[in-house]
């Protein structure tokens, strides 16, 4: 399944935001290795910096210290080798589904014929065949996120970064999209870094779950989830893992709340 080759390597990563002459330490000494084809979920209380980790890997945010390597190359800027899917979908509303998916290829200078070929394959993969010429405004939330996934995959990136991609979907759609994502993931074998605040989602999806501490975020605990897929949410094993992760997270959540109540 994977050659254990490290694709994403974060070591001693730190991030300090300065806002209104105040310095906020978002990340502190965050280290994590993600291997080829692995599905890793980052889980933590809100404001713990899990999105910041993802944005730094994507090259959308500068790190303050430490190192971030993707395929052994230090990350300095955003690039098409790291695809990202956002909670807000972030589709181009004036572009059709196909043209959204083809954006990255267009920018890369790939011929329209070739781009079209790739986009129709991906649109089929994400289950949107027949909607190539629809505009995002005509799609439901789940369908929009399918477009965003196909769009990120079009560049054939080494890693797929997903920032609470199903956070704004209703519960049913969310469950369906989780299954769909696993199907797409097993078809493409991408390395996935997935940010969520839902324990259930993390246990359902991940090979490994990284529970982060409250701000400043660092790795608190890493859980291996050796269950076979598709996973049954009602199985004893599932509930057990969920219980363990939840217990860890709850402690951090309490800390985060205590910190919120007493300003630094």
């Amino acid at each position, binding site marked *: 399944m994977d050659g254990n080759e490290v694709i994403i390597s974060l070591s001693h990563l730190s991030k300090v935001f300065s806002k209104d002459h105040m310095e906020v330490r978002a990340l502190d000494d965050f280290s994590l290795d993600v291997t080829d084809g692995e599905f890793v979920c980052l889980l933590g209380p809100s404001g713990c910096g899990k999105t910041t980790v993802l944005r730094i890997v994507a090259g959308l945010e500068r790190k303050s210290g430490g190192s971030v390597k993707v395929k052994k190359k230090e990350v300095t800027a955003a690039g*098409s080798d790291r695809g990202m899917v956002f909670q807000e979908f972030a589709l181009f509303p004036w572009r059709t589904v196909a043209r959204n998916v083809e*954006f990255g290829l267009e920018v890369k200078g790939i011929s329209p014929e070739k781009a079209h070929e790739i986009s129709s394959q991906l649109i089929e993969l994400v289950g949107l065949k027949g909607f190539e010429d629809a505009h995002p405004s005509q799609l439901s939330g789940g369908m929009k996120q399918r477009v965003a996934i196909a769009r990120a995959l079009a560049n054939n990136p080494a890693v797929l970064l997903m920032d609470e991609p199903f956070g704004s979907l209703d519960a049913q759609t969310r469950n369906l999209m989780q299954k769909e994502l696993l199907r797409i993931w097993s078809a493409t074998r991408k390395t996935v870094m997935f940010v969520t605040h839902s324990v259930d989602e993390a246990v359902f999806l991940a090979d490994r779950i990284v529970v982060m501490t409250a701000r400043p975020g660092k790795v608190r605990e890493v859980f291996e989830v050796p269950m076979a897929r598709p996973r049954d949410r009602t199985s004893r094993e599932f509930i057990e893992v969920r219980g363990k992760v939840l217990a860890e997270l709850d402690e951090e959540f309490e800390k985060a709340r205590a910190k919120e109540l007493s300003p630094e």
Partner: protein
Amino acid sequence: MADIYERLHKIMVDNWRAVVLGLISALAFLLIWQAYAGYLHGTWLFHRTKPAGIADFIPYPGAVIAAFFESFVHRDPASQLYMTSHILASLKRVFLGFIIALGLAVPVGLLMGRSMGAAAAGRPIVELFRPIPPLAWIPLFLVMFGLAWGPVGIVFLGIFFPILLNVIFGARSVDVVITDAARTLGARSRDIFIKVVLPFTLPYLMTGIKVGLGIGWMCIVAAEMLGNVGGGVGYYIFAMLPLGRIDLMYAGMLVIGLLSVLTTGVAGVIERWVYRWMGMK
């Protein structure tokens, strides 16, 4: 042809209530005008007791409509031109002013909308000049740029700021998450500008154009009135007064109103077309 008829029919059916209400109010307006003119001219119900005065300036609606058609088939008593010549003269000035305003406001607006430095540098000038009514510049512009280009300059001023402000606002409103997405897809600054900022700003530009055109027509009438600039509907309106052709003066006003409606209507059609092309409602 059948297609156009069908579409018109659909519009009528869809908006029959709006159409009926619009017709009723227009009819009511004409009736009240007719009644008031009748009263003033002493031909309706009671006899006018006041001496001549306001009556000279309020003709019957029928007279204005007749004058409107007359202005197209007879040369006017001031400059011996047909109304079409005046319309063309005004249209030419508005069009030139519009093109220059568009050509300057779009790049400047994009720059000010996307660069903090350009915004900071441009803001004092924009904020200082924007509130000055374009009409205040008319005397100066007619002297500075002459009778041919002076009115064009006034129209330019009237159209420039609405377009500029809308483009700045549009370029500034581009969702950060959309530009972030573009960057993770491999887009460089140039790609983002052309493939994200420009399309995003387009609907805002259309709003600016619609607002600007309305102001442009106000400006051209005023500019043409203040100097014998060689025809134009504004000149026409102003020239009919001393000749006592109040009916023709109203006809000129009607022409300006219709021209403004027409150009804004064309801009509206283009706007809807742009929206449909962009998949927005």
